[in-house]
């Protein structure tokens, strides 16, 4: 099936939040902290502006607790007495003219009496920099399996390495934005978001409104990648406060500069490995330490850390594993959800480390992975027994074959020996990604979904899971149509409006197809039973029964419901971090060919093969698109996307100097799927959206290492960094 809303998007008819008609509204603007830490001494309003013409909101205008509700209630809606990071919101302004409100925002001076800021998450904080607990550690987590110290002491070889990954900006092409207005006594907030119920909860909490007086509606969302998971709550609250104070509709749209400066990014990470090995490369012990920069508020850092450590040991069998994780408080703009959610950081380190091990032992990186890849019956670091029947070595072999890995290796030897300025190399990464919330997370969400029968015999899917480009509308349509034997045109997906749709959970964690899609299927079954049919009834029989119901129960459409049920045999202990971390893992092997120009030190990916097992592929075009998009985002993170920091804030907050890949920077991404249906996923599917960002960075950097004979340990490997590495290699 073709993407449902494709034509609306291709013709420019799709209306995003900033495209919606809105009468007699005000433009909102946020005034932010100039300093990373300190007491707000004063807020000075410029004398050349008639402030009576502006709506001005500060923390005193917040009706409820001054908190953006999330994991920990630590982040204020608007700073009151003090600030913890540059760009922290302090004041809100609104005016009919966008130009006027922008000038006015520049005319407000927030004066901060500065205090010592903690700006390096890798450094032990000085006493004056401690702002969270005793040591600025936001969260500490540990996984233990076997006896690592003993195994390391006995191992014939121990290889250690330290790896670093930089922050990454999402660069969804539609910047963040919200509109808010009052309709009767109900506050309506519409905008670009992944999680309507997160926004609803945050609005209710800080505005002191029950759910009958707040309504959240998601507008078509121009990309999210996690960046619109938790952050939209802030903009929603800001727009709502301005609307409540002014009594007028308010539109608050970030321009690119503000979006890049003030919103979350991927957590920077530092990962240390100490690995004990047999001579043949078998893993005997993995001792891993993962440290991430959380920034100035807790946001989602504990959960990002959790996913980072669970994935840190890689898709390998090892009896002795210890993984410790720390999320550090710093006075940086808070980091947040980004596709992969910690796993790309820890797997960059893990897969880069595999190549470092291979080089140290003098074994082939392919053979090193072959002997260690998990076989059915073996366990992950958390003790989860893998028994899905997927041949992970075969997945790797398929990727090697498609990429002509071995032939290319021989060709490169000749090429590199003779070419005056170019060097080529192949790189491999084997990796995995657990889909859905970790451990007991899905059960705690208690997701619910409804499918309603319409008077014309068609159905409407009511879910809070949204379309942001990844294909929810299309996949839910296909799942409902297939389940009931209907045509796609018989299926409507409801707008994600919290007054209409039940809370089917956030649109995150590669859970929408696999988990929420399963609820679509079961709610269809329930609907079918509700109208008096058995599970085998399909097509016209279903439509007839729904129509009949409508005739017999006027004004009461038949509704099928489904609630999340944990698949059988899944056990997780959050205290010990032991058990089944995820219902299913997707498995992948990515192989890339890289060419480095010795004159510019620029590395260019010239071939990319992505092979993955994601259960059953439901829509090949959408699935391929997810992989290709994720791979290119991963190539960007590996080679060019670099946040430059000043006082814990992004200094290069524009697309002129934060570079993302263009069409001419990347080759075609060749995608292949190995199918192995997952019995508890919708239509046999596993989660797919995040997997493709885990593998590209290590594959690309492994290839750069091979091409140049250097040993990069940190990304991005920009030309500047690679030049340094090559010069150091020459100097010895």
């Amino acid at each position, binding site marked *: 099936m073709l993407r449902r809303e494709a*034509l609306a998007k291709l013709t420019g008819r799709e209306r995003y939040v900033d495209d919606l008609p809105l009468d007699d509204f005000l433009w909102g603007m946020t005034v932010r902290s100039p300093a990373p830490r300190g007491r707000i001494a004063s807020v000075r309003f410029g004398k050349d502006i008639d402030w009576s013409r502006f709506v001005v909101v500060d923390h005193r205008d917040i009706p409820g607790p001054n908190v953006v509700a999330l994991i920990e209630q630590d982040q204020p809606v608007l700073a009151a007495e003090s600030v913890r990071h540059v760009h922290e919101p302090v004041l809100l302004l609104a005016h009919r003219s966008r130009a006027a409100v922008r000038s006015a925002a520049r005319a407000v001076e927030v004066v901060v009496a500065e205090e010592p800021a903690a700006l390096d998450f890798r450094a032990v904080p000085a006493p004056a920099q401690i702002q969270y607990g005793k040591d600025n550690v936001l969260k500490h987590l540990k996984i233990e399996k076997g006896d690592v110290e003993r195994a390391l002491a006995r191992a014939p070889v121990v290889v250690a390495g330290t790896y670093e990954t930089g922050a990454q900006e999402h660069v*969804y*092409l539609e910047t963040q934005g919200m509109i808010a207005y009052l309709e009767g006594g109900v506050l309506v907030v519409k905008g670009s978001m992944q999680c309507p119920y997160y926004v609803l909860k945050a609005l209710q909490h800080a505005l002191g409104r029950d759910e009958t007086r707040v309504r959240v509606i998601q507008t078509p969302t121009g990309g999210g990648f996690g960046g619109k998971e938790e952050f939209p709550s802030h903009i929603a609250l800001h727009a709502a406060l301005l609307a409540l104070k002014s009594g007028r509709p308010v539109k608050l749209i970030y321009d*690119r500069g503000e979006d890049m400066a003030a919103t979350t990014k991927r957590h920077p990470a530092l990962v240390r490995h100490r690995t004990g090995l047999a001579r043949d490369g078998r893993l005997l012990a993995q001792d891993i330490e993962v440290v991430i920069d959380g920034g100035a508020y807790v946001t989602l850092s504990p959960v990002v850390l959790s996913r980072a450590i669970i994935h840190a040991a890689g898709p390998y069998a090892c009896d002795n594993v210890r993984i410790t994780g720390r999320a550090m408080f710093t006075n940086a703009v808070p980091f947040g959800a980004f596709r992969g959610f910690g796993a790309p950081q820890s797997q960059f380190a893990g897969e880069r480390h595999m190549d470092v091990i291979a080089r140290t032992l003098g074994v082939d990186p392919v053979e090193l992975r072959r002997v260690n890849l998990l076989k059915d019956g073996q366990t992950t670091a958390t003790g989860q027994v893998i028994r899905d029947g997927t041949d992970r070595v075969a997945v790797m072999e398929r990727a090697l074959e498609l990429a002509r890995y071995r032939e290319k290796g021989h060709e490169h030897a000749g090429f590199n020996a003779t070419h005056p300025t170019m060097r080529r190399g192949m790189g491999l990464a084997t990796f995995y990604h657990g889909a859905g919330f970790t451990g007991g997370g899905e059960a705690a969400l208690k997701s619910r979904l409804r499918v309603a029968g319409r008077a014309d015999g068609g159905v409407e899917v009511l879910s809070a899971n949204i379309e942001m480009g990844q294909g929810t509308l299309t996949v839910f349509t296909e799942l409902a149509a297939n389940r009931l034997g209907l045509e796609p045109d018989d299926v409507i997906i409801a707008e994600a409006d919290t007054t209409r749709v039940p809370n089917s959970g956030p649109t995150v964690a590669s859970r929408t197809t696999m988990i929420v899609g399963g609820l679509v299927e079961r709610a269809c079954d329930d609907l079918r039973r509700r109208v008096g049919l058995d599970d085998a009834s399909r097509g016209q029989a279903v439509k007839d029964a729904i129509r009949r119901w409508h005739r017999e129960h006027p004004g009461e459409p038949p509704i099928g419901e489904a609630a999340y049920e944990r698949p059988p045999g899944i056990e997780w202990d959050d205290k010990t971090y032991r058990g089944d971390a995820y219902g299913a893992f997707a498995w992948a092997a990515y192989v890339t060919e890289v060419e480095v120009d010795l004159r510019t030190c620029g590395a260019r990916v010239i071939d990319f093969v992505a092979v993955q097992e994601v259960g059953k592929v439901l829509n090949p075009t959408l699935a391929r*698109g997810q992989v*290709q998009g994720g791979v290119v985002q991963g190539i960007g993170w590996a080679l060019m996307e670099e946040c430059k920091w000043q006082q814990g804030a992004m200094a290069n907050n524009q697309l002129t100097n934060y570079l993302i890949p263009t*069409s001419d920077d990347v080759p075609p991404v060749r995608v292949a799927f190995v199918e192995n249906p997952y019995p508890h996923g919708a239509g046999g599917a596993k989660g797919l959206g995040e997997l493709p960002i885990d593998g590209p960075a290590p594959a690309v950097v492994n290839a750069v290492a091979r091409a140049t004979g250097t040993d990069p340990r940190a990304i991005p490997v920009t030309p500047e960094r690679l030049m340094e590495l090559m010069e150091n290699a020459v100097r010895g």
Partner: protein
Amino acid sequence: MTTLTVAFTLNGKPVSLDVAPADRLLDTLRYQLGLTGTKEGCGEGECGACTVYLDGLPVDSCLVPTFQMTGRRVETIESLDARSLAAFERCGATQCGACTPGVVMTAWWIREHPDLLGSHTVRELMAGNLCRCTGYDGIIDAVTEAVGGEGRENRKR
């Protein structure tokens, strides 16, 4: 505040309106004329989401002052014939859609100037339109098909 009156041809029809000296064509189109198909991605000429044709040439409308439009010809995504977008649907050329109108505008311009393909690849010609979702393959395949290629690009190596 000073305003200037500009008269130009928009999607084949004459328009006349008052604008501020600093108004960008992008904002005039979106907020004054209601043509919201043209999107703002970066506001500094990097991403191409706001691509329109100015006297037949693709330009970033965020970099064009509206007052300079007097006597000129502007065409937006709203002027394109939607019937010939099948290749874009089939190849998965759009995901979130925020870059898409700009992508389609550039693609159509390439289609109308096939001689460019003698000296440039589709990937080079599309490099002024950033997309964060597709990884570009869906776009490149669709453009290649739309310009009469064999459906898969023939990338120079």
